[in-house]
């Protein structure tokens, strides 16, 4: 601790056991040089930006008020301080360093950190993790969350009687602790569980995340309780005023009538008091900070839209065009036109990935296997994540094929060549997905029942299942009931799919159901049936779980059933 204090001017007001809390003083805040800047560069920014695009497209962005990558936060901006790009966001960040060492820059200070440290940073505080230099490695696992989205307001809001997540107190600029090995492991397992639930989106995922989140917060709250209790009143009071002001500025920057006076009125303080406290805490005047937020958004609009300068000015709540030109130049050292031209390149790259993914999907639908393989490689080279290529390229294409198949717009030959193209793409993606620990949506074993050699329908179902991201174990044809059951048991399949073409062999499906009951796995596995003579009433009669009329519908049903079983 002493070393840290000496080297980085870090002020520790209180040390309890192995826990530290970081406080800011007026003096330190005054030293800050925060400038709003564009989102680029910095620590892992490009990758995170791609994730943002993916999450936005997949709809997860709005669905998950918790995430494990920065740009999934609802609102993110970066702040340039000295040579560092720091970032702020509207969600609480829980960051645990799992390996290596480096610095956690918070506002204008750098705090040495290393494996085992955990930082809880409230919303809207510019901060960032950086390597110590010299090729050293540091891994930070982060969760971003908004307590109010997960818990009742009176539980999530500090200061209320039921508030129980002490470590997430709004009034601390940041809190950190060095976790012991046991707690580290515990926290890590909660992270794993939450991230897995978010990634897989199984049924009841939200409740599962909430449960694990509660346990994580309680664990950290208990661990850090002593620290939180020792926050000086003065700091709490100042931050309590500045924090909502910043939030309002981010939410209402587009209103040209938004002024210091308006916010002060809302917060029931005088204009001069807010101005003074804001300047002392943030090291920048209220008007400068608000202008920077507006200019930051103006940059985004220039980069990502074709809006005219006049329209940008209006949408960002800026005063007038001439003033905008002057402020913009001071902010970026460029004119709006220069800025837009320079960032076209970046836009092209983003667009390129979107175009490649779209081309993967289109060529897959046409069955152009070689082209798909080349495009997948190209997407990898352009920096697209394997999950993104799988979901937005290959599976998106197969999904369209499946829908068209259901509507008789495409026929089996087209499905087969599309599946072949997908397999070619998967040759490149499989090792990358495995390296990233991406798991299949579920596992299904498929076969034609004993006594029946027909396999076209069964093969088609296999392809459709793979096209939905499921792992498929193809048992072939003439499969005895016990082989279905044994495979499901040993391979932890969530679903068994039985196919039959003959009236004489469809009875074997009942034997599969019976075998699953006898093996004691009936409550752990769903059984689907299909084939020419099979229908819904037969499915019910033998006690199977699902019948579908075609292979594409079977794939949809299998995904739902896998999730159901996984959610149990």
């Amino acid at each position, binding site marked *: 601790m002493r070393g840290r204090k000496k080297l980085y001017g870090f002020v520790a007001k209180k040390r309890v056991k192995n826990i530290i809390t970081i406080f800011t003083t007026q003096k330190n805040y005054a030293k800050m040089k925060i400038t709003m800047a564009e989102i680029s560069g910095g620590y892992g920014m490009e990758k995170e930006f791609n994730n943002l695009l993916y999450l936005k497209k997949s709809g997860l962005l709005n669905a998950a008020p918790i995430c494990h990558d920065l740009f999934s936060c609802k609102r993110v901006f970066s702040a340039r301080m000295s040579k560092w790009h720091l970032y702020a966001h509207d969600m609480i960040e829980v960051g645990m360093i799992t390996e290596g060492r480096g610095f956690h820059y918070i506002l204008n200070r750098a705090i040495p950190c290393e494996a085992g440290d955990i930082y809880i940073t409230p919303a809207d505080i510019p901060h960032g993790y950086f390597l110590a230099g010299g090729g050293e490695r540091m891994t930070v696992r982060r969760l971003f969350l908004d307590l109010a989205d997960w818990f009742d307001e009176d539980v999530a809001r500090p200061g209320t009687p039921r508030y129980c997540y002490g470590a997430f107190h709004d009034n601390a600029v940041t809190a950190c602790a060095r976790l012991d090995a046991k707690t580290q492991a515990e926290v890590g397992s909660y992270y794993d569980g939450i991230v897995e639930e978010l990634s897989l989106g199984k049924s009841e995922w939200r409740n599962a995340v909430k449960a694990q989140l509660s346990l994580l917060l309680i664990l950290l709250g208990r661990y850090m309780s002593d620290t939180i209790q020792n926050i000086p009143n003065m700091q709490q009071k100042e931050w309590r005023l500045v924090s909502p002001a910043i939030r309002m500025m981010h939410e209402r920057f587009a209103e040209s009538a938004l002024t210091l006076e308006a916010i002060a009125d809302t917060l029931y303080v005088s204009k001069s008091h807010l101005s003074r406290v804001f300047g002392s805490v943030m090291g920048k005047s209220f008007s400068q900070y608000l202008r920077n937020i507006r200019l930051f958004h103006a940059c985004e609009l220039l980069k990502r839209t074709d809006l005219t300068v006049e329209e940008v000015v209006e949408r960002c709540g800026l005063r007038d065009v001439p003033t905008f030109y002057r402020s913009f130049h001071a902010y970026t050292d460029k004119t709006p036109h220069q800025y837009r031209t320079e960032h076209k390149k970046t836009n092209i790259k983003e667009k390129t990935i979107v175009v490649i993914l779209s081309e993967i999907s289109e060529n897959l639908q046409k069955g152009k296997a070689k082209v798909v393989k080349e495009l997948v490689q190209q997407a990898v080279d352009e920096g697209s994540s394997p999950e993104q290529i799988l979901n937005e390229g290959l599976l998106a294409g197969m999904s369209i094929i499946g829908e068209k198949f259901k509507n008789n717009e495409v*026929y*089996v*030959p087209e499905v087969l*060549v599309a599946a072949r193209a997908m397999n070619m793409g998967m040759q490149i993606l499989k090792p990358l997905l495995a390296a990233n620990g991406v798991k299949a949506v579920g596992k299904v074993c498929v076969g034609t029942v004993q006594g029946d*050699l027909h396999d076209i329908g069964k093969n088609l179902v296999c392809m459709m299942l793979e096209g939905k991201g499921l792992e498929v174990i193809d048992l072939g*044809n003439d499969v005895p009931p016990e082989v279905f059951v044994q495979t499901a048991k040993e391979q932890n399949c969530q679903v068994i799919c039985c196919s039959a073409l003959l*009236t*004489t062999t469809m009875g074997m499906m009942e034997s599969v159901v019976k075998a699953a009951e006898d093996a004691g796995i009936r409550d752990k596995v769903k059984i689907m049936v299909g084939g020419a003579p099979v*229908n819904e009433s037969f499915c019910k009669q033998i006690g199977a779980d699902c019948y579908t009329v075609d292979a594409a519908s079977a794939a949809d049903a299998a995904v739902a059933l896998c999730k159901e079983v996984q959610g149990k």
Partner: protein
Amino acid sequence: MNRQPDFENNLLRVMNKQKPQRATLFEMAITPKVYKRVLGHGATEPGFLGELKLAVDGMTKLGYDYAVCRAYGFKIRKDERVNYATRTMNGNGIICDWKSFEEYAWPKIEDFDYSPIEKIKPYMPEGMKLMIMSPNGVLENTIDLIGYDNLCMMLYDDPDLLKAVFDKVGSLLLGIYEITASMDTIGMICANDDWGFNTQTMLRPEQLREYVFPWHKKIVETAHKNNKPCMLHSCGYYNDIIGDVINDIQFDARHSYEDNIIPVEEAYEQLNGKIAVLGGIDVHFLTTSTPEEVYARSRAMLERAADRGGYALGSGNSIPDYIPYENFIAMTRAAIEFDR
């Protein structure tokens, strides 16, 4: 049963979309076990003639106006067929490239002995005719040779080779019909070729039109040239191609209906007046229902078609071993008793 075969006034009239003189029966295939049961014996002599005699005796006894005549012994793919009740359509493809196509030992039309089709004439009761059918169809044989999945890929990878295989198979099957259609004993032709699954055709309709239908058109032309009707037996979904079947290829009748696709009652309403409807009592229904239920449905179907014609009663596909004998007889009894 005491029904004298009368092909001309019954099945032929049905094929011409007319009202038959009596309720007419139709089957594409009946298991020899049924013949053995109704006749008390199986084939009395080996070979093609023995098989024909058994069919003639059995179908006469059961009340049919015709007997089924398979092109006995003619096989395009000579291996496999270990278990006829069930087989994979994805078996090892024999033809996978031009070399295997050229080296394949294709059967020759002239090697086939057609004489039993004429020799059987004195044995046939008066008024009876034969229905000639090939050993599977153009698409079925091609799938046998290539494998279905491989065939689908070949559509994109080597369409010329695929066309060559289809054309070779088509020309062989057409050859059988060209020789037999003119024979006096032959009353009608059956082109048997499964084209669909429950929900769609096995190839795109455009692909069927390019590779398969031209050969069926030639088969139908051959039949019509000899003033004989031609029926299609084809399993599976057919909505997208029924226009081709009726208007372009010009089949006279269509056979094979499944309740999971379209019950024959609905199919009859859809097709009556455009093409004759044969059979249609669902095989699964025949297998799992009681004789009373089979009788009731069969009679209701005959009543539905009584005034409009163009219908012959029979199973949706064929009479395999596993359909209970009593149920099959209940169906035929419905036709025989319908006229009383």
